[in-house]
Protein backbone atom coordinates (compact mmCIF):
# COMPACT_ATOMS: atom_id res chain seq x y z
CA UNK A 1 0.00 0.00 0.00
CA UNK A 2 1.50 3.25 -1.04
CA UNK A 3 -1.12 5.22 0.87
CA UNK A 4 -0.78 7.47 3.87
CA UNK A 5 1.24 6.52 6.95
CA UNK A 6 -1.89 6.12 9.00
CA UNK A 7 -5.03 5.10 7.13
CA UNK A 8 -8.27 5.05 9.04
CA UNK A 9 -11.41 3.95 7.32
CA UNK A 10 -14.92 4.01 8.73
CA UNK A 11 -13.65 3.09 12.20
CA UNK A 12 -16.56 2.55 14.61
CA UNK A 13 -16.56 1.58 18.26
CA UNK A 14 -19.41 0.87 20.64
CA UNK A 15 -18.91 0.43 24.36
CA UNK A 16 -21.37 -1.90 25.96
CA UNK A 17 -22.69 -0.91 29.36
CA UNK A 18 -25.45 -1.62 31.83
CA UNK A 19 -26.81 -4.95 32.96
CA UNK A 20 -25.12 -7.83 31.11
CA UNK A 21 -23.66 -5.26 28.74
CA UNK A 22 -26.88 -5.24 26.81
CA UNK A 23 -26.86 -1.54 26.04
CA UNK A 24 -24.33 0.10 23.82
CA UNK A 25 -22.92 3.56 23.69
CA UNK A 26 -21.38 4.68 20.47
CA UNK A 27 -18.00 6.12 21.20
CA UNK A 28 -16.67 6.52 17.69
CA UNK A 29 -18.70 6.67 14.53
CA UNK A 30 -17.40 6.01 11.05
CA UNK A 31 -14.06 7.76 11.43
CA UNK A 32 -12.21 8.09 8.14
CA UNK A 33 -8.97 10.05 7.86
CA UNK A 34 -5.31 9.83 6.91
CA UNK A 35 -2.09 11.01 8.47
CA UNK A 36 0.65 11.62 5.94
CA UNK A 37 4.27 10.64 6.23
CA UNK A 38 6.34 12.95 8.40
CA UNK A 39 3.56 15.21 9.54
CA UNK A 40 2.53 16.16 13.03
CA UNK A 41 -1.18 15.58 13.33
CA UNK A 42 -3.21 16.91 16.23
CA UNK A 43 -6.37 15.30 17.45
CA UNK A 44 -8.53 18.02 18.95
CA UNK A 45 -11.66 17.54 20.94
CA UNK A 46 -13.25 17.86 24.36
CA UNK A 47 -13.00 15.10 26.92
CA UNK A 48 -14.97 12.03 25.94
CA UNK A 49 -15.07 12.98 22.28
CA UNK A 50 -13.43 9.76 21.08
CA UNK A 51 -9.78 10.80 20.82
CA UNK A 52 -8.53 8.19 23.23
CA UNK A 53 -10.82 5.59 21.69
CA UNK A 54 -9.29 6.20 18.28
CA UNK A 55 -5.77 5.99 19.63
CA UNK A 56 -6.49 2.82 21.59
CA UNK A 57 -8.00 1.27 18.50
CA UNK A 58 -4.84 2.13 16.55
CA UNK A 59 -2.49 0.54 19.07
CA UNK A 60 -4.68 -2.54 19.55
CA UNK A 61 -5.86 -2.05 23.12
CA UNK A 62 -9.46 -2.22 21.99
CA UNK A 63 -11.03 -3.71 18.89
CA UNK A 64 -13.29 -1.92 16.39
CA UNK A 65 -16.88 -2.94 15.82
CA UNK A 66 -16.59 -1.87 12.21
CA UNK A 67 -14.03 -0.37 9.88
CA UNK A 68 -10.33 -0.89 9.32
CA UNK A 69 -7.13 0.97 9.93
CA UNK A 70 -3.52 0.47 8.95
CA UNK A 71 -0.23 1.98 9.95
CA UNK A 72 2.68 2.00 7.49
CA UNK A 73 0.67 -0.29 5.24
CA UNK A 74 0.16 -2.94 7.89
CA UNK A 75 -3.31 -3.57 9.29
CA UNK A 76 -3.62 -2.80 13.00
CA UNK A 77 -4.33 -6.47 13.71
CA UNK A 78 -0.81 -7.33 12.51
CA UNK A 79 1.63 -7.72 15.39
CA UNK A 80 4.48 -6.56 13.10
CA UNK A 81 2.87 -3.14 12.99
CA UNK A 82 3.87 -2.66 16.63
CA UNK A 83 7.57 -2.70 15.79
CA UNK A 84 7.35 0.69 14.17
CA UNK A 85 5.06 2.56 16.51
CA UNK A 86 5.60 4.21 19.84
CA UNK A 87 2.69 4.88 22.17
CA UNK A 88 2.27 7.08 25.21
CA UNK A 89 -0.91 6.24 27.12
CA UNK A 90 -3.00 8.94 28.72
CA UNK A 91 -1.79 9.55 32.27
CA UNK A 92 0.77 6.81 31.98
CA UNK A 93 1.54 4.58 34.93
CA UNK A 94 4.30 2.02 35.21
CA UNK A 95 5.39 -0.70 37.61
CA UNK A 96 6.11 1.38 40.66
CA UNK A 97 8.54 -1.15 42.10
CA UNK A 98 10.93 -0.52 39.22
CA UNK A 99 13.28 2.37 38.56
CA UNK A 100 12.97 4.42 35.39
CA UNK A 101 16.01 2.69 33.93
CA UNK A 102 14.57 -0.75 34.74
CA UNK A 103 11.21 0.03 33.23
CA UNK A 104 12.82 1.25 30.02
CA UNK A 105 15.07 -1.78 29.90
CA UNK A 106 12.01 -4.01 30.38
CA UNK A 107 10.18 -2.40 27.49
CA UNK A 108 13.29 -2.53 25.33
CA UNK A 109 13.36 -6.31 25.73
CA UNK A 110 10.31 -6.58 23.50
CA UNK A 111 12.22 -5.07 20.60
CA UNK A 112 14.92 -7.67 19.94
CA UNK A 113 17.75 -5.42 21.08
CA UNK A 114 21.07 -6.68 22.42
CA UNK A 115 21.89 -6.06 26.07
CA UNK A 116 24.53 -3.48 25.18
CA UNK A 117 22.20 -1.70 22.78
CA UNK A 118 19.50 -1.69 25.41
CA UNK A 119 21.60 -0.09 28.11
CA UNK A 120 22.96 2.51 25.69
CA UNK A 121 19.47 3.44 24.53
CA UNK A 122 18.09 3.59 28.04
CA UNK A 123 20.79 6.04 29.03
CA UNK A 124 20.21 8.15 25.95
CA UNK A 125 16.46 8.26 26.46
CA UNK A 126 16.71 9.17 30.12
CA UNK A 127 18.92 12.06 29.12
CA UNK A 128 16.57 13.11 26.38
CA UNK A 129 13.61 13.40 28.74
CA UNK A 130 15.71 14.95 31.49
CA UNK A 131 15.66 12.07 33.95
CA UNK A 132 19.32 11.06 33.90
CA UNK A 133 19.72 11.84 37.59
CA UNK A 134 16.47 10.16 38.63
CA UNK A 135 17.05 6.93 36.73
CA UNK A 136 17.88 4.92 39.84
CA UNK A 137 14.81 5.92 41.87
CA UNK A 138 11.77 3.65 42.11
CA UNK A 139 8.83 5.01 40.16
CA UNK A 140 6.57 5.03 43.21
CA UNK A 141 8.43 8.20 44.22
CA UNK A 142 7.90 9.94 40.88
CA UNK A 143 5.66 12.93 40.29
CA UNK A 144 3.06 12.96 37.55
CA UNK A 145 5.29 15.00 35.30
CA UNK A 146 8.20 12.66 35.75
CA UNK A 147 6.00 9.68 34.92
CA UNK A 148 4.94 11.49 31.76
CA UNK A 149 8.58 11.76 30.79
CA UNK A 150 9.17 8.08 31.42
CA UNK A 151 6.17 7.44 29.24
CA UNK A 152 7.63 9.54 26.46
CA UNK A 153 10.97 7.81 26.79
CA UNK A 154 9.45 4.35 26.42
CA UNK A 155 7.41 5.51 23.44
CA UNK A 156 10.46 6.58 21.45
CA UNK A 157 12.96 4.12 22.85
CA UNK A 158 13.02 1.89 19.79
CA UNK A 159 13.20 4.56 17.06
CA UNK A 160 9.61 4.16 15.91
CA UNK A 161 8.58 5.64 12.58
CA UNK A 162 5.19 6.58 13.98
CA UNK A 163 4.72 8.08 17.43
CA UNK A 164 1.22 8.16 18.94
CA UNK A 165 0.79 10.28 22.06
CA UNK A 166 -2.40 10.42 24.09
CA UNK A 167 -2.66 13.79 25.86
CA UNK A 168 1.11 14.20 26.17
CA UNK A 169 0.85 17.64 27.73
CA UNK A 170 -1.86 17.07 30.30
CA UNK A 171 -0.89 17.41 33.91
CA UNK A 172 2.41 19.12 33.18
CA UNK A 173 3.66 22.46 34.40
CA UNK A 174 4.58 25.13 31.81
CA UNK A 175 8.22 24.04 31.70
CA UNK A 176 7.20 20.42 31.28
CA UNK A 177 4.83 21.33 28.44
CA UNK A 178 7.59 23.18 26.72
CA UNK A 179 9.93 20.24 26.98
CA UNK A 180 7.32 17.91 25.52
CA UNK A 181 6.74 20.38 22.70
CA UNK A 182 10.46 20.42 22.00
CA UNK A 183 10.56 16.65 21.91
CA UNK A 184 7.65 16.51 19.47
CA UNK A 185 9.34 19.06 17.22
CA UNK A 186 12.55 17.06 17.39
CA UNK A 187 10.67 13.91 16.39
CA UNK A 188 9.32 15.82 13.41
CA UNK A 189 12.80 16.98 12.45
CA UNK A 190 13.94 13.38 12.56
CA UNK A 191 11.30 12.61 9.96
CA UNK A 192 8.90 10.68 12.19
CA UNK A 193 5.16 10.86 11.92
CA UNK A 194 3.49 12.09 15.10
CA UNK A 195 -0.16 11.76 16.04
CA UNK A 196 -1.18 13.28 19.33
CA UNK A 197 -4.38 14.19 21.04
CA UNK A 198 -5.06 17.32 23.07
CA UNK A 199 -7.89 19.51 24.15
CA UNK A 200 -5.71 22.59 24.25
CA UNK A 201 -5.81 24.69 21.11
CA UNK A 202 -2.53 26.50 21.52
CA UNK A 203 -0.59 23.25 21.71
CA UNK A 204 -2.13 22.13 18.47
CA UNK A 205 -1.55 25.45 16.78
CA UNK A 206 2.07 25.57 17.74
CA UNK A 207 2.98 22.02 16.69
CA UNK A 208 0.63 20.63 14.12
CA UNK A 209 0.80 20.56 10.37
CA UNK A 210 -2.80 19.52 10.41
CA UNK A 211 -5.46 18.97 13.03
CA UNK A 212 -8.61 16.90 13.13
CA UNK A 213 -11.47 18.06 15.29
CA UNK A 214 -13.50 15.31 16.87
CA UNK A 215 -16.67 15.90 18.85
CA UNK A 216 -19.25 13.38 19.99
CA UNK A 217 -17.46 10.51 18.30
CA UNK A 218 -17.54 12.15 14.88
CA UNK A 219 -14.82 13.88 12.91
CA UNK A 220 -15.91 17.49 12.35
CA UNK A 221 -13.12 18.85 10.23
CA UNK A 222 -9.55 18.27 9.15
CA UNK A 223 -7.07 20.87 7.99
CA UNK A 224 -4.27 23.22 8.92
CA UNK A 225 -4.97 24.76 12.33
CA UNK A 226 -5.92 28.13 10.78
CA UNK A 227 -8.40 26.62 8.39
CA UNK A 228 -10.59 25.18 11.04
CA UNK A 229 -13.83 27.12 11.21
CA UNK A 230 -13.75 28.01 14.83
CA UNK A 231 -10.29 29.44 14.64
CA UNK A 232 -11.06 32.35 12.31
CA UNK A 233 -10.28 35.75 13.68
CA UNK A 234 -13.22 37.43 15.29
CA UNK A 235 -11.58 40.83 15.70
CA UNK A 236 -8.59 42.67 17.17
CA UNK A 237 -7.83 43.69 20.70
CA UNK A 238 -5.74 46.73 21.47
CA UNK A 239 -4.11 47.11 24.86
CA UNK A 240 -2.90 50.63 25.73
CA UNK A 241 -2.07 53.07 28.52
CA UNK A 242 -2.83 56.73 28.81
CA UNK A 243 -0.05 58.70 30.56
CA UNK A 244 -1.49 60.59 33.54
CA UNK A 245 -0.42 63.96 32.09
CA UNK A 246 -2.26 63.50 28.85
CA UNK A 247 -5.27 61.86 30.38
CA UNK A 248 -6.70 65.23 31.36
CA UNK A 249 -5.37 67.27 28.47
CA UNK A 250 -7.50 68.57 25.67
CA UNK A 251 -5.88 66.15 23.24
CA UNK A 252 -7.57 63.34 24.96
CA UNK A 253 -10.88 64.87 24.06
CA UNK A 254 -10.23 63.62 20.53
CA UNK A 255 -10.29 60.11 21.80
CA UNK A 256 -13.26 60.52 24.10
CA UNK A 257 -15.50 58.52 21.83
CA UNK A 258 -13.10 55.63 21.64
CA UNK A 259 -12.25 55.68 25.35
CA UNK A 260 -15.89 55.30 26.20
CA UNK A 261 -15.87 51.95 24.36
CA UNK A 262 -12.70 50.71 26.09
CA UNK A 263 -12.69 48.69 29.28
CA UNK A 264 -10.35 49.95 32.01
CA UNK A 265 -8.39 47.75 34.38
CA UNK A 266 -5.91 49.63 36.52
CA UNK A 267 -3.99 51.98 34.28
CA UNK A 268 -4.61 49.91 31.23
CA UNK A 269 -7.35 50.00 28.67
CA UNK A 270 -8.58 47.18 26.53
CA UNK A 271 -10.39 47.93 23.30
CA UNK A 272 -11.98 45.49 20.93
CA UNK A 273 -12.49 46.51 17.28
CA UNK A 274 -13.09 44.78 13.97
CA UNK A 275 -10.20 44.23 11.56
CA UNK A 276 -11.44 47.04 9.31
CA UNK A 277 -11.59 49.57 12.12
CA UNK A 278 -8.12 48.72 13.43
CA UNK A 279 -6.06 51.42 11.71
CA UNK A 280 -8.58 54.19 12.34
CA UNK A 281 -8.69 53.29 16.01
CA UNK A 282 -4.90 53.16 16.26
CA UNK A 283 -4.68 56.61 14.63
CA UNK A 284 -7.10 58.07 17.12
CA UNK A 285 -5.25 56.55 20.07
CA UNK A 286 -1.92 57.88 18.77
CA UNK A 287 -3.27 61.38 18.49
CA UNK A 288 -4.61 61.07 22.02
CA UNK A 289 -1.09 60.30 23.20
CA UNK A 290 -1.86 56.73 24.15
CA UNK A 291 0.93 54.23 24.51
CA UNK A 292 0.07 51.04 22.53
CA UNK A 293 1.11 47.93 24.45
CA UNK A 294 -0.12 45.20 22.16
CA UNK A 295 -2.42 44.32 19.32
CA UNK A 296 -3.67 40.72 19.25
CA UNK A 297 -6.12 38.65 17.23
CA UNK A 298 -9.23 37.57 19.07
CA UNK A 299 -10.25 33.99 18.40
CA UNK A 300 -13.08 31.91 19.63
CA UNK A 301 -11.71 29.47 22.20
CA UNK A 302 -11.77 25.81 21.30
CA UNK A 303 -14.22 25.27 24.10
CA UNK A 304 -16.61 27.75 22.52
CA UNK A 305 -16.17 25.98 19.21
CA UNK A 306 -16.86 22.58 20.75
CA UNK A 307 -19.89 23.93 22.55
CA UNK A 308 -21.13 25.32 19.30
CA UNK A 309 -20.79 21.93 17.62
CA UNK A 310 -22.43 20.10 20.49
CA UNK A 311 -25.34 22.51 20.47
CA UNK A 312 -25.72 22.08 16.72
CA UNK A 313 -25.91 18.32 17.35
CA UNK A 314 -28.60 18.77 19.95
CA UNK A 315 -30.62 21.04 17.70
CA UNK A 316 -30.39 18.48 14.92
CA UNK A 317 -31.41 15.66 17.21
CA UNK A 318 -34.35 17.71 18.41
CA UNK A 319 -35.36 18.46 14.82
CA UNK A 320 -35.22 14.78 13.92
CA UNK A 321 -37.37 13.99 16.90
CA UNK A 322 -39.97 16.58 15.92
CA UNK A 323 -40.10 15.49 12.30
CA UNK A 324 -40.29 11.92 13.40
CA UNK A 325 -43.59 12.54 15.19
Amino acid at each position, binding site marked *: MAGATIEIENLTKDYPYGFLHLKKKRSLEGLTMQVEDGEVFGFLGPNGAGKSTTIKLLV*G*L*IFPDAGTASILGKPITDIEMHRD*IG*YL*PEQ*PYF*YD*YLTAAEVLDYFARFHDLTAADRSERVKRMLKKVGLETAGKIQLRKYSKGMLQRVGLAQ*AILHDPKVVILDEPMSGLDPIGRREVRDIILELKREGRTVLFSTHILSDAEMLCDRVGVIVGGKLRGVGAPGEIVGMKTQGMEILFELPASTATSTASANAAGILAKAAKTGDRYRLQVTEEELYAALEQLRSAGAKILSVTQVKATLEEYFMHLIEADRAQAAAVEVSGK
Partner: protein
Amino acid sequence: MKRAGAVALNTFREAVRDRVLYNLVFFALLMMAAAIFVGQISIGIEELVIKSLGLSAISVIGLLIAVFIGVGLVYKEMDKRTLYALLAKPVRRWEFLLGKFGGLVLTLAVNTVAMAAGLLAALVYVKQHLERTDTVLFVAIYFILLKLMLVVALALLFSCFSTPLLAILYTSAFYVAGLFVEEMRTFQFATPNPAASWLLRGLSYLLPNFENFNVMAAAAHGREIPGALILQNTAYAALYCIIVLLIAAAVFSRRNLK
Protein backbone atom coordinates in the same frame (compact mmCIF):
# COMPACT_ATOMS: atom_id res chain seq x y z
CA MET B 1 8.95 -16.99 23.85
CA LYS B 2 11.69 -14.47 24.57
CA ARG B 3 9.04 -11.86 25.17
CA ALA B 4 7.04 -14.13 27.49
CA GLY B 5 10.31 -14.69 29.32
CA ALA B 6 10.77 -10.96 29.79
CA VAL B 7 7.28 -10.70 31.29
CA ALA B 8 7.96 -13.70 33.51
CA LEU B 9 11.19 -12.26 34.87
CA ASN B 10 9.49 -8.98 35.58
CA THR B 11 6.66 -10.74 37.39
CA PHE B 12 9.23 -12.59 39.48
CA ARG B 13 11.01 -9.34 40.21
CA GLU B 14 7.73 -7.75 41.29
CA ALA B 15 7.03 -10.62 43.69
CA VAL B 16 10.51 -10.35 45.17
CA ARG B 17 10.28 -6.60 45.60
CA ASP B 18 6.81 -6.89 47.10
CA ARG B 19 8.49 -9.01 49.79
CA VAL B 20 6.51 -12.14 48.92
CA LEU B 21 9.47 -14.33 49.85
CA TYR B 22 9.34 -13.04 53.42
CA ASN B 23 6.95 -15.90 54.11
CA LEU B 24 10.06 -18.06 54.18
CA VAL B 25 10.98 -16.50 57.48
CA PHE B 26 7.66 -17.62 58.90
CA PHE B 27 8.16 -21.10 57.52
CA ALA B 28 11.66 -21.30 58.94
CA LEU B 29 10.42 -20.26 62.38
CA LEU B 30 7.62 -22.81 62.22
CA MET B 31 10.01 -25.60 61.30
CA MET B 32 12.46 -24.62 63.99
CA ALA B 33 9.77 -24.50 66.64
CA ALA B 34 8.40 -27.86 65.52
CA ALA B 35 11.84 -29.45 65.48
CA ILE B 36 12.68 -28.24 68.98
CA PHE B 37 9.36 -28.81 70.72
CA VAL B 38 7.90 -31.86 69.03
CA GLY B 39 10.19 -34.23 70.94
CA GLN B 40 8.90 -32.85 74.21
CA ILE B 41 5.20 -33.12 73.56
CA SER B 42 4.95 -36.46 71.82
CA ILE B 43 6.87 -39.69 71.68
CA GLY B 44 7.80 -41.76 68.65
CA ILE B 45 6.20 -39.60 65.98
CA GLU B 46 8.66 -36.69 65.84
CA GLU B 47 9.63 -37.56 62.29
CA LEU B 48 6.01 -37.99 61.25
CA VAL B 49 5.00 -34.66 62.72
CA ILE B 50 7.88 -32.80 61.08
CA LYS B 51 7.05 -34.31 57.72
CA SER B 52 3.29 -33.73 57.83
CA LEU B 53 3.62 -30.29 59.31
CA GLY B 54 6.28 -29.30 56.78
CA LEU B 55 4.37 -30.61 53.79
CA SER B 56 1.14 -29.02 54.97
CA ALA B 57 2.85 -25.67 55.51
CA ILE B 58 4.50 -25.84 52.07
CA SER B 59 1.10 -26.54 50.56
CA VAL B 60 -0.83 -23.88 52.47
CA ILE B 61 1.74 -21.12 52.03
CA GLY B 62 2.07 -21.97 48.35
CA LEU B 63 -1.70 -21.92 47.92
CA LEU B 64 -2.01 -18.54 49.61
CA ILE B 65 0.65 -17.05 47.35
CA ALA B 66 -0.76 -18.70 44.24
CA VAL B 67 -4.29 -17.51 44.87
CA PHE B 68 -3.66 -14.05 46.24
CA ILE B 69 -1.02 -13.05 43.72
CA GLY B 70 -2.53 -15.08 40.91
CA VAL B 71 -5.84 -13.26 40.95
CA GLY B 72 -4.07 -9.91 40.59
CA LEU B 73 -1.70 -10.95 37.82
CA VAL B 74 -3.74 -9.55 34.97
CA TYR B 75 -6.30 -7.49 36.84
CA LYS B 76 -3.73 -5.30 38.54
CA GLU B 77 -2.00 -4.53 35.26
CA MET B 78 -5.31 -3.54 33.71
CA ASP B 79 -6.46 -1.60 36.72
CA LYS B 80 -3.25 0.37 37.09
CA ARG B 81 -2.91 0.68 33.31
CA THR B 82 0.66 -0.62 33.34
CA LEU B 83 -0.47 -2.95 30.60
CA TYR B 84 -1.28 -0.21 28.10
CA ALA B 85 2.25 0.78 27.20
CA LEU B 86 3.29 -2.85 27.13
CA LEU B 87 0.61 -4.07 24.72
CA ALA B 88 1.60 -1.38 22.20
CA LYS B 89 4.92 -3.16 21.96
CA PRO B 90 5.27 -6.08 19.58
CA VAL B 91 3.98 -8.60 22.12
CA ARG B 92 0.97 -10.82 21.67
CA ARG B 93 -1.55 -11.00 24.44
CA TRP B 94 -1.08 -14.74 24.96
CA GLU B 95 2.64 -14.13 25.30
CA PHE B 96 1.88 -11.69 28.07
CA LEU B 97 -0.38 -14.21 29.82
CA LEU B 98 2.17 -16.97 29.46
CA GLY B 99 4.82 -14.68 30.92
CA LYS B 100 2.63 -13.77 33.87
CA PHE B 101 1.91 -17.44 34.49
CA GLY B 102 5.57 -18.38 34.17
CA GLY B 103 6.64 -15.56 36.47
CA LEU B 104 4.42 -16.64 39.33
CA VAL B 105 5.24 -20.31 38.83
CA LEU B 106 8.91 -19.37 38.97
CA THR B 107 8.31 -17.46 42.18
CA LEU B 108 6.48 -20.42 43.69
CA ALA B 109 9.18 -22.82 42.56
CA VAL B 110 11.91 -20.77 44.21
CA ASN B 111 9.80 -20.42 47.33
CA THR B 112 8.96 -24.12 47.46
CA VAL B 113 12.55 -25.21 46.94
CA ALA B 114 13.63 -22.96 49.79
CA MET B 115 10.92 -24.39 52.04
CA ALA B 116 11.90 -27.93 51.05
CA ALA B 117 15.44 -27.17 52.14
CA GLY B 118 14.09 -25.91 55.47
CA LEU B 119 12.04 -29.08 55.92
CA LEU B 120 15.07 -31.25 55.26
CA ALA B 121 17.12 -29.26 57.73
CA ALA B 122 14.48 -29.75 60.42
CA LEU B 123 14.32 -33.45 59.61
CA VAL B 124 18.08 -33.82 59.90
CA TYR B 125 17.97 -32.02 63.24
CA VAL B 126 15.35 -34.44 64.59
CA LYS B 127 16.61 -37.70 63.06
CA GLN B 128 20.34 -36.94 62.87
CA HIS B 129 20.44 -38.71 59.48
CA LEU B 130 18.37 -39.22 56.32
CA GLU B 131 17.08 -42.45 54.86
CA ARG B 132 16.33 -43.63 51.35
CA THR B 133 12.60 -43.49 52.00
CA ASP B 134 12.86 -39.79 52.71
CA THR B 135 13.15 -39.20 48.95
CA VAL B 136 9.38 -39.68 48.83
CA LEU B 137 9.23 -36.22 50.39
CA PHE B 138 10.64 -34.76 47.18
CA VAL B 139 7.89 -36.43 45.18
CA ALA B 140 5.28 -35.02 47.54
CA ILE B 141 6.80 -31.54 47.23
CA TYR B 142 6.95 -31.87 43.45
CA PHE B 143 3.25 -32.80 43.46
CA ILE B 144 2.50 -29.75 45.59
CA LEU B 145 4.26 -27.62 43.00
CA LEU B 146 2.20 -29.20 40.21
CA LYS B 147 -0.93 -28.44 42.18
CA LEU B 148 0.16 -24.83 42.68
CA MET B 149 0.78 -24.51 38.94
CA LEU B 150 -2.79 -25.52 38.29
CA VAL B 151 -4.08 -23.09 40.90
CA VAL B 152 -2.07 -20.27 39.31
CA ALA B 153 -3.52 -21.10 35.90
CA LEU B 154 -7.05 -20.95 37.30
CA ALA B 155 -6.40 -17.73 39.20
CA LEU B 156 -4.92 -16.21 36.05
CA LEU B 157 -7.99 -17.18 34.05
CA PHE B 158 -10.33 -15.53 36.53
CA SER B 159 -8.01 -12.55 36.76
CA CYS B 160 -8.66 -11.90 33.07
CA PHE B 161 -12.32 -11.03 33.51
CA SER B 162 -13.04 -10.54 37.17
CA THR B 163 -12.12 -8.43 40.15
CA PRO B 164 -9.60 -9.95 42.58
CA LEU B 165 -12.19 -10.56 45.26
CA LEU B 166 -14.46 -12.54 42.97
CA ALA B 167 -11.48 -14.27 41.41
CA ILE B 168 -10.37 -15.43 44.86
CA LEU B 169 -13.84 -16.80 45.39
CA TYR B 170 -13.91 -18.61 42.04
CA THR B 171 -10.41 -20.01 42.43
CA SER B 172 -11.04 -21.28 45.95
CA ALA B 173 -14.36 -22.76 44.85
CA PHE B 174 -12.61 -24.66 42.07
CA TYR B 175 -9.90 -25.78 44.44
CA VAL B 176 -12.31 -27.06 47.06
CA ALA B 177 -14.51 -28.70 44.44
CA GLY B 178 -11.38 -30.26 42.98
CA LEU B 179 -10.64 -31.91 46.31
CA PHE B 180 -14.01 -33.63 46.34
CA VAL B 181 -13.98 -34.94 42.83
CA GLU B 182 -13.71 -38.54 44.02
CA GLU B 183 -16.69 -38.08 46.29
CA MET B 184 -18.67 -36.79 43.36
CA ARG B 185 -17.92 -39.96 41.49
CA THR B 186 -19.02 -42.26 44.30
CA PHE B 187 -21.99 -40.07 45.03
CA GLN B 188 -23.89 -41.84 42.28
CA PHE B 189 -24.29 -44.81 44.60
CA ALA B 190 -26.06 -42.76 47.16
CA THR B 191 -28.33 -40.68 44.99
CA PRO B 192 -31.28 -42.40 43.41
CA ASN B 193 -31.54 -39.73 40.72
CA PRO B 194 -29.65 -41.04 37.67
CA ALA B 195 -29.54 -37.64 35.93
CA ALA B 196 -27.88 -35.97 38.92
CA SER B 197 -25.47 -38.85 39.28
CA TRP B 198 -24.40 -38.67 35.63
CA LEU B 199 -24.08 -34.92 35.78
CA LEU B 200 -21.84 -35.21 38.82
CA ARG B 201 -19.82 -37.94 37.21
CA GLY B 202 -19.26 -35.86 34.08
CA LEU B 203 -18.40 -32.83 36.18
CA SER B 204 -15.96 -34.90 38.20
CA TYR B 205 -13.89 -35.48 35.07
CA LEU B 206 -14.09 -31.87 33.89
CA LEU B 207 -13.05 -30.33 37.19
CA PRO B 208 -9.38 -30.30 38.06
CA ASN B 209 -8.75 -33.18 40.43
CA PHE B 210 -6.55 -31.73 43.16
CA GLU B 211 -6.76 -34.93 45.17
CA ASN B 212 -4.44 -36.47 42.55
CA PHE B 213 -1.55 -34.50 43.96
CA ASN B 214 -2.15 -35.37 47.58
CA VAL B 215 0.37 -37.98 48.65
CA MET B 216 1.18 -36.34 51.95
CA ALA B 217 0.10 -39.35 54.02
CA ALA B 218 2.16 -41.73 51.90
CA ALA B 219 5.14 -39.39 52.05
CA ALA B 220 4.91 -38.96 55.81
CA HIS B 221 5.01 -42.72 56.24
CA GLY B 222 7.79 -43.10 53.69
CA ARG B 223 5.79 -45.27 51.32
CA GLU B 224 7.07 -45.55 47.77
CA ILE B 225 5.21 -43.58 45.06
CA PRO B 226 5.09 -45.41 41.73
CA GLY B 227 6.97 -43.74 38.90
CA ALA B 228 3.95 -44.07 36.63
CA LEU B 229 1.96 -41.86 38.98
CA ILE B 230 4.66 -39.19 38.86
CA LEU B 231 4.56 -39.23 35.07
CA GLN B 232 0.79 -39.24 34.88
CA ASN B 233 0.41 -36.44 37.40
CA THR B 234 2.97 -34.36 35.50
CA ALA B 235 1.11 -34.92 32.25
CA TYR B 236 -2.20 -34.20 33.95
CA ALA B 237 -1.04 -30.90 35.43
CA ALA B 238 0.61 -29.83 32.18
CA LEU B 239 -2.40 -30.67 30.04
CA TYR B 240 -4.83 -29.05 32.42
CA CYS B 241 -2.71 -25.90 32.62
CA ILE B 242 -2.60 -25.73 28.83
CA ILE B 243 -6.38 -26.02 28.66
CA VAL B 244 -6.93 -23.30 31.25
CA LEU B 245 -4.34 -20.98 29.70
CA LEU B 246 -5.90 -21.54 26.30
CA ILE B 247 -9.27 -20.41 27.63
CA ALA B 248 -7.61 -17.48 29.39
CA ALA B 249 -5.86 -16.45 26.16
CA ALA B 250 -9.12 -16.70 24.23
CA VAL B 251 -10.89 -14.52 26.78
CA PHE B 252 -8.10 -12.02 27.16
CA SER B 253 -7.40 -11.64 23.42
CA ARG B 254 -10.94 -10.43 22.88
CA ARG B 255 -10.94 -8.09 25.79
CA ASN B 256 -11.17 -4.33 25.30
CA LEU B 257 -8.88 -2.39 27.60
CA LYS B 258 -10.90 0.71 28.24
